[in-house]
């Protein structure tokens, strides 16, 4: 019996070992002329369904225990239904966008391949796609914190003209009602036909099941596993809570760590984008190892007007809220490049360099942001530490996402 269970465990691990936690179209070192492709086959992009219900219910090392009523609401059928909705491209005006087209499983449930994703007919979205991982613990939703409940939040992208662009709430409900399979799944999960509330609840239940903690850091700090972190990583942790004071916003508590204070701050990045002059020349990469300097005036001939972003101010119209954005959790941050509210930093090194320099000075800069004067070694130590925050079950969740059926129009051709 013992041998058998070990064998099963090995089999489970092996069956997921091929799951890459990065884009299948690998562009690492693309800047260099020595770049070589390392691309995965889409025909072989197969995952493995996970027991999301168990994952949603089970506390994970490093995260707070969910409230009792939240746990009681977790429902196997609702998760399954929400998962189907999340990956259904038909839930957009022209049947091309699902939630998962921007929150891509193997890209950290975010979009690694663009700074800011695009939506319906290629319309611009002015902010980076945040990860859905651990969203169950987020009190503030959207970069400007304009929403506070996942079941409500779901409707914003469904209806936004630059995201899924559905004509109305009713149109979405009718679309879902028109599919007998969905009617059956809603009946099974809610004992109801689809409506505004239960559609939101179903998708929220799936999203809340994407919990990824029990990282090496958690095992080290909360699991008394002393060997879980290297000296470099521990040095990074000491800087994170000490000299660099990252943890004053990316909170670590004695029993758990969300790596966010659930607040909004102004780091100066948004101010800089809104208020400083854009450079006259831009370096554009044309091929591996090939770049060109392009004049901004040329770029403007083919570029639309970029939407401004004033952050929290757009919700409150309080001048003091200009360029405030919410503190994202840093869990699984290794998987969710590019970074910041606008995806303007391609890697964690750039993020550290920005904070080390004290953000961008202006009158609304958060007092928590100050020049840190971290040297290169210290910055690299913090980056090493951040890479210990990847949850132990992320691969299980990604594999589940890859196994989810993608909803596309299946009607026969019109005659």
């Amino acid at each position, binding site marked *: 019996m013992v041998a058998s269970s070990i064998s099963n465990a090995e089999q489970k691990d092996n069956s997921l070992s091929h799951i890459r936690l990065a884009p299948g179209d690998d562009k690492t070192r693309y800047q260099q002329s020595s770049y070589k*492709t390392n691309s995965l086959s889409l025909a072989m992009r197969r995952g493995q369904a996970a027991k999301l219900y168990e994952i949603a219910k089970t506390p994970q090392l490093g995260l707070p225990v969910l409230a009792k009523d939240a746990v009681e609401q977790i429902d196997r059928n609702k998760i399954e239904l929400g998962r189907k909705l999340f990956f259904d491209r038909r839930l957009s005006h022209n049947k091309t966008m699902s939630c998962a087209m921007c929150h891509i499983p193997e890209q950290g449930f975010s979009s690694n391949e663009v700074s800011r994703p695009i939506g319906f007919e*290629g319309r611009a979205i002015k902010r980076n796609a945040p990860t859905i991982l651990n969203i169950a613990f987020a009190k503030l939703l959207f970069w400007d914190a304009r929403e506070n409940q996942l079941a409500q939040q779901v409707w914003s992208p469904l209806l936004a003209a630059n995201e899924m662009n559905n004509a109305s709430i009713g149109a979405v409900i009718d679309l879902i009602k028109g599919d007998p399979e969905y009617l059956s799944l809603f009946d099974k999960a809610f004992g109801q036909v689809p409506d505004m509330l239960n559609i939101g609840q179903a998708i929220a239940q799936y999203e809340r099941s994407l919990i990824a903690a029990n990282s090496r850091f958690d095992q080290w700090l909360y699991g008394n596993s002393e060997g879980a972190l290297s000296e470099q990583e521990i040095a990074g942790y000491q800087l994170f809570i000490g000299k660099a004071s990252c943890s004053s916003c990316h909170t670590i508590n004695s029993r758990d760590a969300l790596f966010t204070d659930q607040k909004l701050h102004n780091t100066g990045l948004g101010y800089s984008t809104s208020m400083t002059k854009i450079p006259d020349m831009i370096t554009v990469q*044309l091929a591996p190892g090939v770049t*060109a300097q392009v004049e901004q005036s040329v770029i403007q001939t083919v*570029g639309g007007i970029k939407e401004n972003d004033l952050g929290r101010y757009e919700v409150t119209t309080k001048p003091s809220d200009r360029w405030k954005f919410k503190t994202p959790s840093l869990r699984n941050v290794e998987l969710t490049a590019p970074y910041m509210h606008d995806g303007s930093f391609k890697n964690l090194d750039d993020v550290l360099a920005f904070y080390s320099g004290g953000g961008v000075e202006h009158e609304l800069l958060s007092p928590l942001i100050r020049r840190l004067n971290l040297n290169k070694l210290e910055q690299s130590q913090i980056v090493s530490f951040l890479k210990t925050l990847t949850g132990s079950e992320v691969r299980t969740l990604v594999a589940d996402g890859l196994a989810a059926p993608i909803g*596309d129009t299946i009607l026969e*051709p*019109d005659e």
Partner: protein
Amino acid sequence: MNRINRSIVVSFLAVLAIGISATSSADETCMSPYMAKIVGQEDFVYVWTLGREGLGDEQDKMVTVDVNPISAQYGKVINSVSVGGRNEAHHSGFTDDRKYLWAGGLDSSKIFIFDVHTDPAKPTLHKTINNFVAKSGGVVGPHTFYALPGRMMITALSNNADHGGRTALVEYSNQGEYIATHWNPTDQDLRGAVKSGDYADGYGYDVRVLPRRNAMFTSSFTGWSNYMMDFGTLLQDSEAMKRFGNTVVKWTLHSRKPEKILDVPGAPLEIRCAWQPDHNYCFTTTALTSKIWLIYEDDKGEWHSKEVADIGDPSKIPLPVDISITSDDKGLWVQTFMDGKARYFDISDPFAPKQIYEKAIGSQLNMISQSWDGKRAYFTSSLLKNWDKKGAADEQFFKSYTWDGKDLKLEFEIDFKAEKLGSAHQMRFGAYGLYGMQRPDTTTQVESPSVDDGLASQ
């Protein structure tokens, strides 16, 4: 029909007599050799046109322009069929019998099949395929519609998993039935192909064939996230700019198996294969790196890619887009989008193309279609909805020129914005003579396909 049957006999005899077909040429120089072609004056140009928000009926449409100089309607839009929605109308192609014109939407992945034979002056929407993505197993963005015998070979640009550039060829029957998906080779699954250089990106764009060499070629562009993005935003997104194709794949035509992956860095787009029976090569141009590349077979039967010329000043990113080879393989038209120029290269020596002529056609320029004899060339303006220029520079036109070998002379133009039509993209030719019809005022010469696919001598 009599005319076409007679042509088939003539071509077949020619193959028997001299073992080659020395007269092949078409849109006419750029289309499938398996297709009947117009060798005289074309009657119509069908312009697959993008709908624009705030203009006319705002939706994509197939626009028919009368281009026969003896017609009373010469130079006029004589028909327009709206298809519903803005699908990112892009390219179109006829079935081998040239009775139907398949036109794709890169965004919606819908395929609109127009009947162009019942009344060539008034194409009608015959069928809409709206389940291409589901049928193909997740392929997004149908691009080139290329006629093979009884089949349409469709390239695509993206996929429904990550909206990136990995994609496939998808094969349909002429009747619109899905047949097969042929995934472009990736490192994980080369599908039997040899990775001859550094890249196996799995990207797609265009397809062309050399039947006598049992060869098929595909090129590589970029995925949905990039081709749908505002071009100015894209150029400034260094992460997104890494996601362009750098490969041409040589396939075995009959088995549809990828055979060899050739490195062609910088987004190789259109492929144009030479027509002459001893010219075993094709050209492609790279959009980002602004080069002409030759894809050629050496005397040992190996296929190679070679950079053979610059297009304009590559450091300025002129962005070469559509290209068109002349029927005698001596000239190559190359359009550059950013400066709106048509450039004519002498390719008598395919290893050393030389630009010998250029003319500014408009503020932006994409497609060209030339007549089989090269004497007429038509140009349109639109590249992609969100890549086209902004403001006044966003001219949208159809322009008809004559070419005397030295200069392009404008015959007429149609302003697609003033006509409330949209953004003019790809062009295909129509003629009464293809279907045994005669218009009251003229006669059109057509010729049936005379393909040497290597089987005639066996």
